[in-house]
């Protein structure tokens, strides 16, 4: 069985309810209709673009194209992490740490899955590598962005407490320990919630897609299980690593709190 293809006319029909919503918003002067319109347009353009690019990459399967596509995902993911920060480190440290965290955790977990679990030949086959990396990277990105933001925001707010602890002779690692723990917890909350409710409250998109395209539900479920576990590990290790590096960056060699390295 093959999936029933949607025509461009169907897409037009799909956007109608959203257009109606934008109209209602405009009538009630809720001031969101513009945002909705822009969001809808972006979805269209971005997905259409990705569709064409993926079609090209799949037809000309070559490791270079897979790597190129991954690098673009890594760059946009890091950029998005940086964009979500209220306070960034000066001299590009925020985006640098985001690249490092996303790359180390996201890519390791993806390659592990491709080689050890899926076992597709060759392992960089774009049909497998790109969607897997996309899902893992997307969730790792959310974790890293949340963790970094929580740490830097709290350090800024709790400057007096941290410095009082330093003045009492606590090492920097002890003075920031609670803040680090809170940041890891915040970073992990979305994925922990997803692990708890997946399949009951929400049917994950990938599984839904596989079922729609005619896969055996049990096969689809096994794929989804793998994805959930990998996402958890990726987001967890990624945020753990970046939070630790950020915490180090908040202090200098003499264990002084260096909030001057952060900007608005």
């Amino acid at each position, binding site marked *: 069985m093959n999936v029933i293809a949607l025509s461009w006319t169907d897409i037009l029909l799909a956007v109608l309810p959203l257009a109606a919503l934008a109209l209602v918003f405009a009538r009630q002067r809720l001031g969101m209709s513009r945002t909705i319109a822009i969001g809808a347009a972006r979805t269209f353009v971005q997905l259409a673009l990705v569709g064409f690019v993926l079609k090209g990459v799949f037809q000309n399967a070559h490791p270079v194209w897979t790597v190129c596509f991954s690098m673009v995902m890594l760059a946009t993911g890091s950029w998005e992490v940086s964009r979500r920060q209220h306070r960034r480190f000066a001299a590009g440290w925020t985006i640098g740490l985001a690249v490092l965290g996303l790359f180390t955790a996201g890519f390791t977990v993806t390659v592990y899955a491709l080689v050890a679990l899926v076992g597709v030949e060759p392992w960089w086959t774009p049909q497998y590598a790109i969607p897997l990396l996309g899902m893992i990277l997307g969730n790792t990105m959310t974790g890293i962005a949340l963790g970094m933001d929580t740490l830097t925001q709290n350090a800024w707010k709790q400057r007096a407490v941290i410095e009082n602890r330093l*003045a*009492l002779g606590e090492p920097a690692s002890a003075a920031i320990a*609670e803040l680090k723990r809170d940041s890891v917890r915040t970073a992990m909350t979305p994925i922990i919630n997803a692990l708890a409710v997946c399949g009951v409250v929400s049917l994950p998109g990938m599984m839904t897609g596989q079922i729609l395209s005619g896969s055996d539900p049990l096969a689809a479920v096994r794929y989804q299980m793998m994805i959930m576990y990998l996402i958890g590990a990726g987001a967890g290790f990624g945020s753990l690593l970046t939070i630790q590096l950020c915490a180090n960056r908040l202090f200098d060699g*003499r264990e*002084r709190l260096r909030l001057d390295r952060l900007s608005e």
Partner: protein
Amino acid sequence: MSRLDVQNLRYGGFGPVSFSAGPGERLGVTGPSGCGKTRLLRALADMDEWQGEILLEGQAPGAMRASQWRRQVAYLPAESQWWFDTVGAHFGTSPEAEALRVLGLDPEVLAWPVARLSSGEKQRLALLRTLANRPSVLLLDEPTAHLDAERERAFEAVILGCCEKDRLTAVWVAHDPDQLRRVATRGYRMAAGGVWQEASA
């Protein structure tokens, strides 16, 4: 070589500051707001960047970990911070009942939630918390701002007791000239911009 030697210390656009203090000595420091008194104490505790020379018994801060230095050269900030729920959680070793009594603190205060403390009680408990590290130099920043006259005298007596008994050296920043006359063995004045001069008693 004395207990604390400071030569040509510059920090955040202030200084140069030079002085030395022996065991048991109390240096009073006064001056207008914004002249860099707090920043001086922070530099001495190696909490801000500085240039020049700071020596404790002939040793520079760089000879040890910063946390180790700060246990010996202890900075007591003007506003103390409390981050655990109960008072007692902030103390590694509980202060003696006698110390609590002298400072007019409730004997059960360590079991209290921090939210119950008045600003005066916080100030006195912060002193005990810092003294628990048994520092050799104590850096005080307006330490009695929230205390009434009676408590203020008790607070001063505790520090003077440590200077007598444990040969603690103190650098005491205050606006009140009467207090400095009571506690200091020597006085310094800081003018705007951190210009440092010995003051007559």
